[in-house]
């Protein structure tokens, strides 16, 4: 049996908007192996965001099965999903989503607050910041950091609980080209150094070309390409 970190079978997702039912996913299946670097591409309305939300355990599919790190998560309760997200998923957002009042260090410590792990919090946060090259910015607040640096803090935050996957949603979307390149480089190097599975959602073919595999989504299903 293959070592799938992400295994989705026949996912469907239906949103009810009043009378109208919107089918965002129509029987989508996808597998991602441990240590793989995958990008997910697709036009707006293709179901890309819905898939990302389900992969990140932020949302549940209407039908089908989803296994994350071999655990069936497609029908867990809200609080169980919260703990799965905390332990197995590291999020990197387009808009960084750092807490503006907190220092880089506190931002990185945040996921550990919800994991009940009290030991070595500071030490682990510091080593995560070191891994993204921000050891000298530990006490800075987000508004004292450049966009690239903010995204590095976000990546450190994603790393700190040693998740099974890192899920990056347009990680370079709000950055200029050179900082964008640096962030991609960092993400790719994390994969090489730690073997972290990396899933990047993007519009940008340039970014997608740097990943090992591209999954194209169209109308709620995977569009196979050679």
């Amino acid at each position, binding site marked *: 049996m293959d070592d799938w970190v992400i295994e989705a079978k026949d996912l469907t997702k239906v949103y009810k908007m009043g009378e109208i039912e919107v089918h965002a996913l129509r029987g989508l299946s996808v597998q991602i192996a441990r240590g793989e670097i995958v990008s997910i591409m697709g036009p707006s309305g293709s179901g890309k965001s819905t898939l990302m939300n389900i992969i990140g355990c932020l949302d549940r599919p209407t039908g089908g099965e989803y296994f994350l790190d071999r655990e069936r998560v497609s029908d867990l309760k809200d609080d169980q999903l919260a703990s799965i997200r905390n332990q197995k998923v590291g999020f990197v957002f387009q808009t960084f*989503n750092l807490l503006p009042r907190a220092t880089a260090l506190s931002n990185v410590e945040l996921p550990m607050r919800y994991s009940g792990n009290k030991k070595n919090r500071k030490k682990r946060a510091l080593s995560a910041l070191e891994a993204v090259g921000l050891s000298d910015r530990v006490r800075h607040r987000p508004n004292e950091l450049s966009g690239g640096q903010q995204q590095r803090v976000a990546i450190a935050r994603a790393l700190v609980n040693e998740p099974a996957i890192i899920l990056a949603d347009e990680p370079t979307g709000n950055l200029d080209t050179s900082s964008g390149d640096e962030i991609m480089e960092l993400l790719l190097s994390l994969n090489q150094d730690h073997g972290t599975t990396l899933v990047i959602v993007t519009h940008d073919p340039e970014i997608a070309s740097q990943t090992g595999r591209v999954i194209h989504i169209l109308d709620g299903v995977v569009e196979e390409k050679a």
Partner: protein
Amino acid sequence: MNIGQSFIEALESVSSNKMRSGLTIIGIVIGVAAVIAIISLGRGAEGTIIGSIQGIGTNLIFVFRGGSEEVLNPKPLTLGDAAAMSDIFQAPSVAGVAPILQGDVKVSMGGESTNTRIVGVTPDYGMVRNSKMAEGEFINEEHVLGQASVVLLGTEVAQDLFDRKEGLVGETIRIDGRPFRVIGVLESKGGSSFGNEDDQVMVPLSTAQTRLLRRSPSDRVDTIIVQAFDSKAVPQASEEISFILRTRHRTDIGADDFSILTQQDFLDTAQTITGVLTIFLGGIAAISLLVGGIGIMNIMLVSVTERTREIGLRKALGARRIDILFQFLTESALLSMIGGIIGIGLGALISLTVGRIAAASDTPLTPSIGLDTVLLATLFSAAVGLFFGLYPANRASSLEPVEALRYE
């Protein structure tokens, strides 16, 4: 979930919006301060009133004419009634009886004149009411028998007429135009529940009856003050007095045409009145605390809306419902707790200041800020914070992470 951490985070969040948090806290401060001040002043007032009632003497019984409202044509109290009460065989528990007449008169001396209260008394009055003389002698049996034109002055009246309080024995003043010789000055008693006892003059009962306060029938008196042997004998003495008066007035059963008040009755009444007033005013103050609570709710709702993305992020990072709930509850509880602490201080300050002002104007009023009051206010304000924080916090905790993250 770490309480210390949550507390620090709440503190950061509260202090990041100082103006807004400050104004919200003021709402609670006013509410708590009002509750504390009113309750402690109410207790102080109760203490003062009870003290002055107890100052009358714990073994006194007051007998008035007229019973319940249904009793028509109540017979007046007379000297005969008083005499019957002094009979050791009919009323063995009674130690002394002092029938009195009282009214308002104009007293004058030279060009000075003042309106004051006049009390017609018998020699026993001095013993029963424990009246002490600053100088001179109390009214004696001879004065009563001879309907003497003699008068005792209260210190305030003396001050008004003579501009001094001593060396007045032998002076002559006029009461309603008639000359009266001053035979003594009463020692100052201060204000009491019977009005200012320094602002009155006393004459022999017989003199009052025949010349100053004529009543019909002529042996009628206004009030009979009875002294029981001690405070334990008061109920027994009341029984004896009731029996005597029922017999003498030939009243129907259950239709007494007189009323008997003991110090306990006064105490009960005073306590009921001050208690009701304190609860009433405290209730009004509590409403302002409620308004403060609504302020907290309002600000927390704004805060939840403003921080929707933050909530989404926290949820994405693994915060459970209860984590978010706890975070926002801590914040609202912190707001109301700060308000509560400042409010207790301010309330104590207000009541102490009012106490000082009262003391400066010769009304002893010692505010009593009990530990229970403080605890009550603290608990109440914390409860207000939790109660009004619950709705916003619940709203925050039930946000869908996907929706919240997308919120602009």
